[in-house]
């Protein structure tokens, strides 16, 4: 067994999701991503089950594994109880941890996702937090969203939120002792290690392009090249 396949086998999602694929293509037929992107979960599962190390490395460096939306519609349909969505999650984790993510445009986006998620979770205790969710980055928030942002405290009070307040309730301030526990969990379970890999390789790439960290983040957040779509 090769090195990369062996690493995949250590991921519980891979153990659960990879049985024996019969190549029926049901997952691709039901997949929302396969209609939008040049994406075929069937071939990903088939490639992985071949255990071909070279093919797996190519996959980990590719755009393909980043197209899935993790809706898990494929899990319901597979007649052989495979879970292509879980296999993709295992592939993505391995791609980040091995540093292969830096080879693809979609993989490189992981840096800005991690920055946002880690900041929200560790500073506030939420994956999404209203003071960091900006209309500027989310014009689809609409004219109502713009109005909410301009009157955030007033509107939240009106509808009964406890925004940044003490005690329980909607969007309460999560006590520091709880945030510290989240930080301990991140440290102990390898989340910070994952972020370090993303940060190190993203910085190297930004340096090679002569971009500051901010310019690089902006570029990967906004840029989309041709060739991704069906």
């Amino acid at each position, binding site marked *: 067994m090769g090195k990369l396949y062996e690493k995949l086998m250590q991921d519980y999602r891979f153990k659960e999701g990879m049985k024996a694929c019969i190549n029926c293509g049901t997952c691709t037929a039901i997949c*929302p*991503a396969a209609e939008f992107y040049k994406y075929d979960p069937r071939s990903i599962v088939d490639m992985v089950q071949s255990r071909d190390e070279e093919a797996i490395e190519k996959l980990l460096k590719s755009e393909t594994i980043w197209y899935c939306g993790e809706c898990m519609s494929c899990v319901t349909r597979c007649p052989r109880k495979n879970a292509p969505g879980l296999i993709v999650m295992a592939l993505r*984790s391995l791609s980040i941890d091995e540093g292969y993510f830096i080879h693809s445009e979609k993989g490189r986006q992981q840096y*800005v996702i991690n920055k946002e998620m880690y900041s929200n979770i560790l500073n506030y205790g939420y994956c999404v937090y209203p003071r960091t969710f900006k209309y500027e980055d989310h014009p689809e928030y609409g004219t*109502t969203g713009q109005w909410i942002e301009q009157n955030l405290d007033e*509107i939240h*009070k009106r*509808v009964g939120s406890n925004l940044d307040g003490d005690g329980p309730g909607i969007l309460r301030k999560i006590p520091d002792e709880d945030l510290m526990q989240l930080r301990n969990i991140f440290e102990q379970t390898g989340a910070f290690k994952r972020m370090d890999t993303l940060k190190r390789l993203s910085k190297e790439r930004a340096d090679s392009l002569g971009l500051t960290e901010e310019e690089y983040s902006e570029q990967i957040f906004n840029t989309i090249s041709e060739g991704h779509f069906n």
Partner: protein
Amino acid sequence: MIYEGKKRIWSEYQKEIPEDNYFYVRSCIRQNFFPASEKTFLDIVRNRLGKDFFETQHHTTCGGIAYHSDAIPQETVMTIIARQFALMTEAGYKNYACSCITSFGLYTETMETWKLFPELEAKIREILWKTCHKEFRIPENLAHASDIIYKFRNMIAEKAAYRLVNVKTGKPLRVVEHIGCHYAKMFPSRGVGGAEYPYVLAGMIESWGGEVIDYPERRHCCGFGFRQYLVKANRGYSLSNTHKKFESMAPFKPDMIITNCPGCPYFMDRWQYVISELEGKTYGENGYGIPVFTYEEVAGLVLGYDPWDLGLQMHQVAVEPLLDKMGIKYDPAKKYLGENGKYIGKPQMPRFIKCC
């Protein structure tokens, strides 16, 4: 014979939903975009139905959005979940209710994975002790908050001030129900009615007088896609999937949409606005959109809550056409008032989609 067979199959998809005594955890997305929905839920179950729902300020995100956007490892999210279970254990509860569908799917996945791989559960227990000095019991029962409203749907119907009926025609309102993917697509037996024929929202609609619409893309994802929305460059994925659903449902002329996932109503509401800005196209009657609601908002409307107490002013698509159809009395002048009745200005009018 056929009936008996169907009854047997159906029985596999009946989940046990406890009567009372829940430990309640909130949703990141619902708190941000539909905050009054959680307030309404707790008010209904505690004050209208007399149930015990406990909440602690010490619970946090489950980490689900970060996990499904591949930002954090599986062991990280499992330890955060174990910490939430520890808070439930400390508070003396056995029934766990969550507001979020991503969380619901993740709690289910975690508990199933631990059953298959007990050594992983043991490892997470060890990490939790090391990082938080906490221990936990696995909940005896896990419910999504929509399961609970489903369970008490007939009691809500008995107390109804309004029904899902067009007061002018006397006909049932035509309702699209949209179930969040992570409710039952991964573990069909954990949702009411399974993945193909989920009944959790359909049951509410029928009980409150509406008519459920069946349409081709009924089970298609709303298009959130986690990283496909979080990164601006990927949002075409999210928009395209919502567009596909609306094109599919439009010929059936829905009066409203009801959802059980916190993210889906946000995307189905806001992408309607974007489609109108991009293409000048609207899906409702007379230039309006199709209003999209959380199940808590619909339960609140049925029970006679004031629409602005329910936070419906935070929607982009105007809800007034639906309120008028149901015959709900509301004061339009109060829509844009702040905490103490102070007028705080109103949103700009979009270019195409009509708003009130």
